[in-house]
């Protein structure tokens, strides 16, 4: 793997870094520390800027109007975009746009018209509804939401837990059991309009992450036309799995971005802060924290770029994406924790971003497949058929 960035990559990274520092950070200073959105007029103004930069809708494939940027460069951009207080879950407060639910690129033409294109135009939002109270690590076996065919429709009953953004969505992907198979072959993915009778967002699930909270959903005799099945009947789990694997790369990149910013702040602070007559930076215990941070950051970055490079080349990247997600989320937590320690009381105060990063980074070891599940994926890739 070539570790030298191209001139183009250097330029793009510099442009995004400037955007974060000159546009996002000053606005963020005025926001509540747990904010997840800019004022609408700031949001609209900054979207015009990212469009002018040619970077709006980064993850949208070029054939659907997105900029033609390779995955390694997009990963480097994602690392930059996360370098502010809200950067882990709302990088640049969404001003670079998003692809929405990437699975819709594989949808039927009619489904694309109804869901994908309005999402790309920013008119609709979707949620991803996989996890249930019965468990999220092993959804293939845990899903209890059931869909039963009735003529041209399916009737869905059940519920979902932990679903982000469902209260703001016009539709969502709901994974439901459609066959007696207890495993991955009996699950189908339905596109569900949130105004369908029987669909309710029952409550907000309050967690460490006060911005971009999760919700609990219930489905009572919710009637969905068969034309809203995404992909094939009983093959929905492959859609979920594919999404989870791809999502691990930007998920890791966000953690790395925050870790880089935390380390940068610590590197500025410790030479200035004096205790017992000498700057903190002169103490070996502080130096070692900085060294360990640097190693954590570099390891996570190389693993994540390797996963992105393999995905870009069209090779299997399951193992690499799992390693990147596992290492970056755990390393990110350690880096933020060490930086908090170096800042003392200020490290835990809401005046600085560490406390938000600390809370949100903890969720990263659980969301999108917990660390144990990533180890399980890696072990399966290593041991192959001997494990199955």
């Amino acid at each position, binding site marked *: 793997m070539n570790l030298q960035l191209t001139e183009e990559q250097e330029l793009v990274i510099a442009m995004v870094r400037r955007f974060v520092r000159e546009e996002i950070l000053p606005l963020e200073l005025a*926001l*509540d*520390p*747990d*904010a*997840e*959105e*800019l*004022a*609408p*007029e700031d*949001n609209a103004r900054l979207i015009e800027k990212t469009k002018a930069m040619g970077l709006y809708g980064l993850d949208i494939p070029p054939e659907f109007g997105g900029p033609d940027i390779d995955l390694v460069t997009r990963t480097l951009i994602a690392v930059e975009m996360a370098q502010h207080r809200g950067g882990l879950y709302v990088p640049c407060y969404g001003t670079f746009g998003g692809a929405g639910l990437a699975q819709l690129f594989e949808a039927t033409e009619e489904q694309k018209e109804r869901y994908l294109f309005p999402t790309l135009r920013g008119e609709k939002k979707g949620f991803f509804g996989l996890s249930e109270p019965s468990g999220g690590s092993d959804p293939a076996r845990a899903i209890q939401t059931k869909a039963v065919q009735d003529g041209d429709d399916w009737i869905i009953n059940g519920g979902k837990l932990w679903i982000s*953004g*469902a*209260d*703001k*969505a016009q539709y969502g992907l709901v994974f439901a059991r459609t066959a007696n198979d207890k495993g991955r072959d009996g699950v189908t993915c339905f596109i569900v309009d*949130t105004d369908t009778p029987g669909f*309710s*967002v*029952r*409550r*907000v699930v*309050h*967690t*460490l*992450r*006060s*911005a971009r*909270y999760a*919700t609990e959903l*219930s489905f009572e005799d919710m009637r969905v036309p068969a034309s809203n099945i995404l992909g094939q009947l009983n093959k929905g789990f492959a859609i979920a799995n594919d999404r989870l694997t791809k999502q691990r790369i930007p998920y890791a990149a966000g953690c790395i971005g925050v870790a880089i910013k935390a380390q940068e702040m610590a590197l500025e602070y410790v030479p200035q802060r004096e205790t017992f007559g000498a700057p903190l930076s002169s103490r070996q215990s502080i130096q070692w924290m900085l060294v360990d941070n640097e190693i954590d950051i570099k390891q996570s970055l190389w693993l994540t770029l390797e996963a992105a490079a393999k995905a870009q080349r069209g090779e299997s990247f399951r193992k690499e994406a799992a390693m990147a997600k596992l290492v970056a989320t755990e390393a990110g937590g350690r880096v933020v924790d060490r930086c908090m320690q170096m800042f003392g009381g200020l490290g835990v105060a*809401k005046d600085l971003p560490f406390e938000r990063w600390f809370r949100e980074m903890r969720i990263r070891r659980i969301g999108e497949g917990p660390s144990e599940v990533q180890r399980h994926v890696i072990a399966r890739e290593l041991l192959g058929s001997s494990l199955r």
Partner: protein
Amino acid sequence: MSTRLNKEWLSAQTAVSQLSGNLGVFQLADESKRIIFVGYAGGKSRFGLKGEVSEALQRTSGAAFARWEVNTAYMSRYKELLMIHLHDYGQLPEANQPSPGESVPGEIATLGQLRPAG
């Protein structure tokens, strides 16, 4: 935890004397105990709930009662309370509604929809 804030209403004067500087959410009501404002004391509040509720009581005409909940997840709870109000009454509490020409705060502009359980 109940999704609605079901605590007892306290008169403005009693509320101000009992409040402290914690993070959290609060509601104000008029004489008939109709909710007219939902607010929060977040990381930028100088005196937490005490400061935010006192200021809100002064600037919200008709505010006679207050109740609150100490909560570090104040942002998600604040949005939840607003969404519950929207569900129950079809509109935001009157003092949360932006006046004409006033810039809408991001968290209100992007508010979602709940159908609360209880």
